[in-house]
């Protein structure tokens, strides 16, 4: 295996083209353990952390741009970003330990395409778009369309994600992310739940986006729960509907980390809790 650390997007694209068996990375927190447990080493590892635009966070014209190689710690700790997207910041702050958060990136979390990726539901509810570079130029794609199944993405050969773009939220709108793990830290999500809730002055929900992680081959939107929320107060009745809708949206696997039944039941609980949390924030 050969290691290269290009200084520009163009240089990275050249490298990617030069070696079909190559792999881009930022934190390597997924790829190294995977290689240790038998994933074949690629011939070329391309380290994206030396490309300036990939490690920047900026907000211009009401649009946030987060470099795909920015370490999670900076996303969790950026106070302006956190004030716009507390849920996204929380999701980045839940990835592994401090040691992991100092390396792991949004780009890696999204492209590793684990159904349990913490930041993916949070990115989806914020309608984040990935900016994808290729020799042919840049294109953007909603994050929801990137993972196509466990470990697989819709990115073409020769492409990689440069950054994520998210529009600043409207007033009285807020996001939240919750996940369930057996311990307090260091586990993979058994269930993850993100919500973005917009409230009106009367206390009714005017808009909602809800996404769940770790309960299906990819993160899933819970549109039935969103419909149940829109135009309604967040009361017992609505919350009961949300729980039922979240559970109905689940199509989980049974594995060492959680049974189908357990994931499904807890998905309802987390969906309810995350909606309450996001709504509380939106009211403020």
């Amino acid at each position, binding site marked *: 295996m050969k290691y290269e650390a290009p200084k520009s997007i163009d240089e990275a694209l050249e490298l990617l083209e030069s070696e079909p068996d190559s792999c881009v990375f930022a934190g390597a927190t997924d790829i190294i353990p995977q290689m240790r447990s038998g994933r074949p080493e690629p011939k070329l590892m391309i380290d994206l952390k030396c490309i300036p635009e990939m490690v920047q966070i900026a907000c211009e014209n009401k649009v946030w741009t987060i470099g795909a190689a920015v370490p999670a710690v900076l996303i969790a700790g950026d106070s302006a970003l956190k004030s716009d997207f507390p849920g996204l910041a929380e999701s980045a702050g839940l990835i592994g330990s401090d040691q992991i958060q100092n390396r792991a990136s949004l780009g890696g979390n999204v492209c590793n395409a684990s159904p349990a990726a913490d930041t993916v539901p949070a990115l989806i509810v914020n309608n984040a778009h990935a900016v994808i570079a290729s020799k042919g130029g840049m294109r953007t794609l909603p994050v929801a369309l990137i993972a196509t199944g466990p470990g697989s993405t819709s990115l073409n050969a020769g492409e990689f994600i440069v950054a994520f773009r998210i529009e600043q939220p409207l007033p009285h709108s807020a996001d939240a992310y919750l996940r369930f793990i057996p311990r*307090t830290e*260091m586990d993979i999500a058994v269930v993850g739940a993100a919500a973005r809730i917009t409230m009106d002055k009367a206390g009714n929900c005017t808009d909602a986006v809800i996404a769940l992680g770790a309960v299906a081959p990819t993160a899933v939107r819970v549109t039935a729960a969103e419909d149940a929320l829109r135009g309604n107060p967040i009361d017992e009745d609505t919350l009961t509907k949300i729980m039922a809708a979240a559970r109905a949206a689940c199509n989980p696997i049974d594995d*060492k980390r959680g049974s189908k*039944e*357990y994931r499904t039941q807890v998905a309802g609980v987390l969906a309810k809790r995350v909606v309450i949390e996001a709504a509380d924030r939106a009211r403020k």
Partner: protein
Amino acid sequence: MTDINAVSNTPNSYKWVGTRPVRHDGLEKVNGHARFAADLSLPRMLSGHVLRSPFAHARIISIDTKEAEAMPGVKAVITSADFPEPHRKDYVSLNLMARDKVFYEGQAVAAVAAGTKRQAKAAAEKIVVQYQELPHVLSIDEAMAEDAPLLHENLITKGVEPVPGKASNIPSRTLFERGDLDAGFKEADVVFEQEFTTKVVHQGYIEPHAVVADTSSDDRSVIWCSSQGHFMIRAKTAAMLGWEPSQLKVIPAEIGGGFGGKTTIYLEPLAAKLSQKAKRPVKIVMSRDEVFRATGPTPGTKLRIKLGAKKNGKIVAGKAWLAYENGAYPGIWGMLGAMCLFAPYDIPNFYVEAFEVVVNKPVNIAYRAPSAPMAAFATETVVDQIARELKLDPIELRLINAVEEGSRKPDGPKYGPIGFKETLEAIRNHPNYSIPLGPNQGRGIASGYWFNIGESSSATVHLTEDGTAIVVTGSPDIGGSRASMALMAAEELGIDVKLVQPRVADTDSIGFTDVTEGSRTTFATGMAVVGACRQLIDELRKRAAMMWEVDIDEVEWMDGNALHTVNKHAPLALAEITKSAKKTGGPLTTTHSLEARGAGAAFSTQMCDLEVDPETGAVTILRYTTAQDAGTAIHPGYVEGQFQGGVAQGIGWALNEEYVHNAEGVMENPGFLDYRIPVASDLPMIETIIVEVPNPKHPYGVRGVGEVGIVPPIPAVANAIHDATGLRMRRLPMSPMTILAGLNQKNGSA
């Protein structure tokens, strides 16, 4: 004068024992200089890699190493053919390199030594092993079934009359009984019978096994490794090589955690043999994955227990059927469970039957008070049930039934002075016992017993010219025992503990010493240190008498000085005597070896406060309090550390830890991501109460403290969950998933 059983001064007058000095090996451990086994490199050293079985149970048809031997950098390849046929009961040697069959996924099949780790691994992958898969058994039920596939075709159950006519997967049965069981249960006003199951768990030491072996000639090898006993390494490695122990020298490295898991060998004979073939030193370091698949774990169990009590709380009868997994080869784990199960209580009528069961999983080895935590899970849960039924305080019920000095253990011997009741009273009197609990919160009480052992130990004390005492033992220090040795030596010699240098020496440099196990080191090796110090004091008095030209009977030893009892001479300090040692008969060195008897039994009572999230089943430990009898705490800081470490491991075992095997018998969670040991944020502070009921068989009253702390946490957590939710947990781990399933069933929903 050199009676090492003589009790030292009264406890109140101790100057060093009971203090908390900085440990002597501490500096190296906080600046990264301490040398663990994987830290050692030798010139010309090769790297080894072990090829392991992918199957849970298979016949080995053939092994072809030709291609591997031709790979770049390869200097040696070994298989079982390179070792003599082991004795049929030498299960360690049989386990370490598969012969005609593999018995579990991860068992070693071959090993390679090459220039680099990568070369060794690449070559190992070229070894062609032809397997014929065999049906496997993974659980006690599967293994004990009438028509179960057999692991060992000639295994006949021991301890059963008449001797069974056919082989089974049950190597042995142990029976302990007392009184008249039927009469006992007839007398009872309340009877509870429950079944419990627990999973295989791993000791989870953070340091993977590692070894460097240098077999410089065909009849001599030097081995560096971390273990709980380098004399054990010497004996077992020699057995597998077909050598005499004296042909090996084993040098102990610092050990990065053992908890019982490093009381056996895994890599040492393999490295020694590879080194012999390659004629170069060989280092092998396990990956974490190998540690989980091929070492350790401690048994999974299935336990049925029945207890009967009278209305006044007196337990009058107990019956138990225990089955302990042993992994692929016979062990002693069921028997140990049977010894501990009812040991805390004076039960007049009982019948305890325990079975060992072989399964296609890694061979089990000790884990801190081995077999006792599962047994306590069963007993202490049912005891809690009785207390609730009779509306008795759970501590009161235990006090009514608690063993005391003179009570008999289930296996026969009488208890000496023990502090069980004192631990119960200490918890009852602790302010935490009366803190009010909120909704979904619960409090659980549980006690535990471990017998502790003595065994062989040796100590040598050298006095240097400058008056420093070098205290040498053969006991690997797995949790601060060097500090305890230094404190006892300082107390005996009457010198500052800083003037004592405790060391652990290799097998050529100190007398035979058994493994650091059974909470024996501060007790037994401590006695050897005390013995050597007392001999040394006699020698120092003799030297002072020579220097003063007086009769030795006129010389006493006090506070590090020779005193002339008739006051003609001014006191002579130890350093002055050592300075002129050459003139008074030469070096001042003494050695004491012994087979220690009289280990005092250990008891712990613990209280767990927790909260259950009724919607997810998640448990948060809010408070934890433990009271344990230490006999005498030599270094209270490290005594507390032992209590706390045991509790943390017990909580992990209770809540999340388990081996997960798939249907093919392949372990699915061989890493710290999915084998979930507690992290710092999972636990609260663990409050400790050191109870001190001295053990009269030790000069300072020491009883082992290392193990019993892990016994009560599982039932303490289970009883607290019941208190919080009304749910009786009888299956480990008590993970959120199990708890939520239980709550669903209880609520009749979902």
